[in-house]
């Protein structure tokens, strides 16, 4: 009897252990620190709207994604550096010039960092800037119609990574090179890296009213890898801070060879002084080649101009404007707190988070002390610039954002967590896991002088088991955390396009009220606009055929065209006559080696078609615009040679 009871208890305890094990296993996949009311906190009821816009870089998709926060819903993918056949971007005659570069047409890039135009260190909702890393470029997106309006290529640069961070009033956006190259680029042995390769840091001026960009000047600096940057604010307004690694100047196996020095640098740049020196005519005008592509709102057409010169300043010209601050170890992120006094370096391989003081840096500069001098640039003593170090923060600190309430939030790639620490005593106060391996993180306004510190969003590099599997290539993701209380709380996982790098967020109310509903047909100055059906026509000019077409619910005019010949280049200039909200029309032709058109109300878009065979070819509207959308179609007849005159049905 007693033995029986012992065995019974044994069996029961085994069952209990397995039950506990099974439960805890189930729990660990959901994540630690999930808010108990998470569902309510992120639920945006049907018809209601999100509180914030979140503009998330698309990484290797080359595009920009727009999400709502707190719901994490994707509203739009804005094509920037990559072609997008859905919107005709990079396929229409109007947008092809946007992707022109000194290397010719480049249909793709790797977009890493977003930054909003600012006034007084706060996002003003006018424009968003985003970098192209692979073929160095900066793009400007207009936040009234969410379209890419300008792309400027950066010469002498390779790997436009520390970009496009904006100064406090968007006087400049910056473009520092991550891969140093010979300047000017030349056919020389790679073994001459240490002596011949240089870094180019470009300051791109932004026009206050039009947003137009121009490269004001370039600084030619020692050949390290310039990684990330932030402009100063308030007292440090005149400065730009930029991390760099590979101070070893290794050209091969950088994984090892660029990880030898105990400290690399944050480069402090007094851009105001550089601006003055450039204005005095310091430096030289270098012969370069770069594309400047501008989209004109009135003609709905982009033009690309190849520019040939840029002002370059070497470290000799601007000695008193550049200082290296030693920073442990291979620093990545470089973030300035809302007061402009503290500069946080994120040393990928460092065991602490170093926090530099702007006022101490000024004293160190005044003291005249330096550890050493590199190519004429003083290296200030580490301790003299240091405000403090965050001890035992975790592993792999990358980026820091601020909540405006005295706390900083640093992403830890290796230990896969967000660490919250105090800006007063540099003590860690909270930490929460991310799933998995967070890269950038973003608080709405978290890089500004006035953060809207309600949420922090993590942009992760891996998802592993977080979503339904989709073969070897899994979704990328972001995670939303509540930071309104003392403890961070996980609220939501949401998938993202490409690979998300930096992202910015701002209150929806500031952007939605200025959102454009349509383009004014009467203001359309496209050279091939057709403002009314009576003006539709087809014109032959040698082998070029121009179709002046209109679309309105539910017909295309003209919709029967004859007299096109094999070998012709047919340009379909389609004007959407609608002046109503949310009524785009599409246009596509069978067998066209090209994309569709997606034409917004009041806009004109041009699709090139080069028919290769005789026959009758249907075309149609691709956007389900109305009840009789299916009827919105027509025919083009293509003949083999001959001299049949062009005919079309007139309205």
């Amino acid at each position, binding site marked *: 009897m007693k033995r029986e009871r012992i065995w019974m208890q044994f069996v029961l305890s085994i069952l209990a252990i397995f039950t506990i094990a099974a439960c805890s296993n189930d729990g660990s996949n959901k994540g630690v620190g999930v808010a108990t009311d998470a569902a309510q906190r992120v639920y945006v009821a049907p018809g209601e709207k999100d509180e914030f816009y979140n503009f998330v870089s698309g990484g290797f998709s080359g595009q920009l994604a727009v999400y709502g926060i707190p719901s994490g819903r994707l509203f739009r993918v804005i094509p920037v550096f990559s072609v997008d056949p859905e919107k005709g971007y990079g396929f229409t005659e109007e947008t092809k010039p946007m992707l022109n570069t000194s290397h010719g047409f480049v249909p793709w890039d790797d977009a890493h960092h977003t930054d909003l135009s600012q006034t007084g260190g706060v996002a003003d909702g006018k424009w968003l800037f985003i970098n192209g890393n692979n073929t160095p470029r900066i793009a400007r997106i207009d936040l009234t119609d969410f379209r890419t309006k300008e792309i400027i290529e950066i010469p002498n640069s390779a790997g436009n990574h520390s970009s496009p961070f904006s100064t406090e009033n968007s006087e400049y956006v910056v473009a520092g090179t991550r891969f140093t190259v010979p300047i000017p680029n030349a056919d020389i042995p790679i073994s001459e890296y240490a002596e011949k390769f240089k870094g180019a840091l470009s300051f791109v001026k932004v026009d206050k009213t039009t947003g137009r960009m121009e490269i004001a000047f370039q600084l030619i600096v020692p050949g390290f890898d310039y990684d990330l940057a932030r402009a100063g604010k308030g007292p440090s307004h005149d400065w730009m801070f930029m991390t760099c690694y590979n101070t070893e100047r290794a050209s091969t196996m950088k994984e090892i060879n660029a990880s030898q020095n105990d400290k690399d640098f944050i480069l402090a740049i007094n851009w105001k002084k550089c601006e003055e020196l450039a204005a005095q005519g310091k430096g030289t005008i270098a012969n370069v080649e770069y594309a400047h592509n501008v989209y004109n709102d009135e003609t709905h057409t982009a033009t690309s101009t190849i520019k040939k010169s840029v002002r370059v300043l070497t470290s000799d010209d601007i000695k008193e404007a550049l200082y290296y601050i030693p920073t442990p170890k291979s620093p990545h992120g470089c973030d300035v707190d809302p007061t402009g006094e503290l500069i946080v370096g994120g040393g990928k391989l460092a065991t602490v988070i170093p926090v530099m003081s702007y006022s101490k840096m000024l004293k160190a500069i005044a003291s005249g002390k330096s550890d050493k001098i590199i190519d004429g640039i003083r290296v200030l003593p580490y301790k003299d610039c240091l405000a403090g170090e965050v001890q035992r923060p975790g592993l792999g600190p990358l980026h820091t954002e601020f909540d405006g309430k005295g706390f900083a939030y640093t992403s830890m790639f290796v230990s896969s967590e967000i660490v919250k620490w105090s800006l007063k005593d540099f003590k860690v106060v909270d930490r929460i896991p991310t799933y998995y391996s967070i890269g950038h993180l973003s608080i709405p306004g978290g890089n500004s002088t006035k953060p809207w510190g309600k949420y922090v969003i993590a942009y992760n590099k891996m998802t592993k088991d977080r979503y339904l599997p989709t073969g070897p290539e899994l979704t990328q993701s972001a995670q939303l955390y509540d930071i309104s209380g003392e403890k961070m709380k996980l609220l939501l996982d949401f998938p993202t396009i490409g690979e998300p790098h930096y992202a910015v967020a701002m209150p929806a109310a500031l952007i939605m009220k200025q959102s454009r509903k349509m383009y004014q047909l009467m203001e359309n100055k496209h050279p091939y606009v057709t403002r009314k059906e009576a003006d539709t026509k087809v014109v032959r000019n040698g082998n070029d055929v121009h179709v002046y077409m209109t679309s*309105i*619910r539910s017909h295309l005019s003209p919709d029967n065209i004859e007299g096109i010949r094999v070998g012709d280049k047919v340009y379909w200039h389609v004007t959407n006559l*609608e*002046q*109503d*909200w949310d009524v785009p029309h599409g246009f596509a032709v069978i067998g066209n080696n090209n994309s569709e058109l997606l034409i917004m109300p009041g806009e004109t878009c041009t699709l090139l078609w080069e028919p290769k065979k005789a026959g009758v070819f249907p075309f149609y509207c691709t956007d389900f615009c109305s*009840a*009789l959308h299916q009827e919105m179609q027509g025919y083009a007849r293509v003949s083999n040679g001959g001299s049949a005159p062009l005919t079309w049905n007139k309205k």
Partner: protein
Amino acid sequence: MAAGALALLGLFAFPMWSIWLEAPQYPKGSELGIFIHINTIEGSRPNDLDNINNLNHYIGMKRIEADAIPELKYMPIIVLVLVGLGLVVAGIGKRWLILVWLGLLIAAGALGMYDFWLWEYDYGHNLDPRAAIKIEGMSYQPPLFGSAQLLNFTAHSYPAIGFGFIVLGSVLAAAAWWLGRIPTKRVEHQRILP
């Protein structure tokens, strides 16, 4: 009395009637609106009337165009005549003339409403036989007053600000008639007028 007559001039600045069209595709806040003035018809927003006309082609309704509606040329004259007569009545200062003027105003208003109904009837029934959407027995006459369902659209037809000036004019005239019972007031009243 003169103020009552002059109040009618408000009709030159504000629409007297409005028709709002709501549909799943044009929800509240984005609905299409028509404002009927004495001298023109326009959309509540710059493109509304064009958009309504574009949609109406599916059911074969004529385009609503101010130039094609002769009433919009007569109505301003009628209103001006009423204003002029009102001022004359005020000048003469005979009480019974006020009642005559009020009678004229009400008669003009009633005729106007009848004409408006006829106009709505014409647009709602006189449809292009080749229209894409044809529904047996269906007509598209908007209501004279109130709301009605026309296919996917709900049409709301109500007086607008300008109509308020007709009411104001009538009330002021009626008040002038009422106050005119007391002789001292009338003297004062006449003195104010040039």
